[in-house]
């Protein structure tokens, strides 16, 4: 991993402690890529939530199983891939946390937040080796605050 590298790859054991490690790596890459502070937070949080899903749901907290992260900084976007060794999940079956019957549920907001914070999000099954989450944030992504125009 060098400061000039367009690709950063990291392999972590499936522990909750490594969630913060992954989040820290994501934050540093976002700073280097030039994202504003709000998007740095949002991207790092999307990585945080994805790695929690990989550790807890994909790899079932089995520390021998790995979570592989790949950050690829393109000219116009940051693409993040997070792979676990689990069987995957059907995005269409993830309940809508905004539905009135789900509003007071304790869990089920992670995927929703990732979708809210990233420009693209999809899940791919990797035959024989697990599940990969792919997230993209464009470098020209504007936060709601940015869209308000120039301050007087």
């Amino acid at each position, binding site marked *: 991993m060098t400061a000039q590298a367009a690709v950063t790859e990291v392999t972590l054991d499936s522990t909750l402690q490594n969630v913060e490690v992954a989040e820290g790596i994501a934050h540093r890459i976002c700073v280097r890529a030039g994202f504003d502070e709000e998007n740095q937070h949002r991207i790092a949080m999307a990585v945080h939530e994805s790695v929690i899903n990989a550790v807890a749901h994909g790899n079932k907290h089995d520390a021998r199983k790995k979570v592989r992260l790949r950050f690829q900084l393109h000219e116009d976007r940051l693409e993040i891939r997070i792979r676990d060794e689990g069987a995957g999940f059907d995005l269409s079956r993830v309940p809508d946390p905004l539905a009135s019957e789900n*509003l007071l549920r304790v869990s089920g*907001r992670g995927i*929703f937040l990732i979708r809210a914070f990233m420009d693209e999000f999809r899940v791919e099954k990797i035959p024989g080796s697990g599940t990969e989450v792919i997230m993209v944030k464009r470098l020209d992504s504007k936060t709601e605050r940015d869209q308000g125009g120039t301050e007087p």
Partner: protein
Amino acid sequence: MKATMRQVDSVTVFDISGRITLGEGCTQLRELIRNHLAKGNKKLLLNLADVTYIDSSGIGELVSAYTAVSSQGGQLKLLNLTKKVHDLLQITKLLTVFDVHDDEVKAISSFDKATSV
């Protein structure tokens, strides 16, 4: 996560700081609320001014605390949300659930006087 407690009139105020995330932060918050409910404290105000980070599990823990207190006839309210926490509660529509304040005196006076302490 760290929390200090103070009593203002009949309201128990928790000044919470740090991260409320899956694992230790969520567990601490859960035990804090459950312990005070068990003691009969049913008017709880969470001051989140110094909360630096909250994830989806932390949001879930706030919801869990809210429903636990409400189910016992109490009230749980939030005070001094940071912009990040405010945004998260807005995106998840939970601003429609929680009673949120940015003035402690007004927050204290908003508690239902009829609620048993």
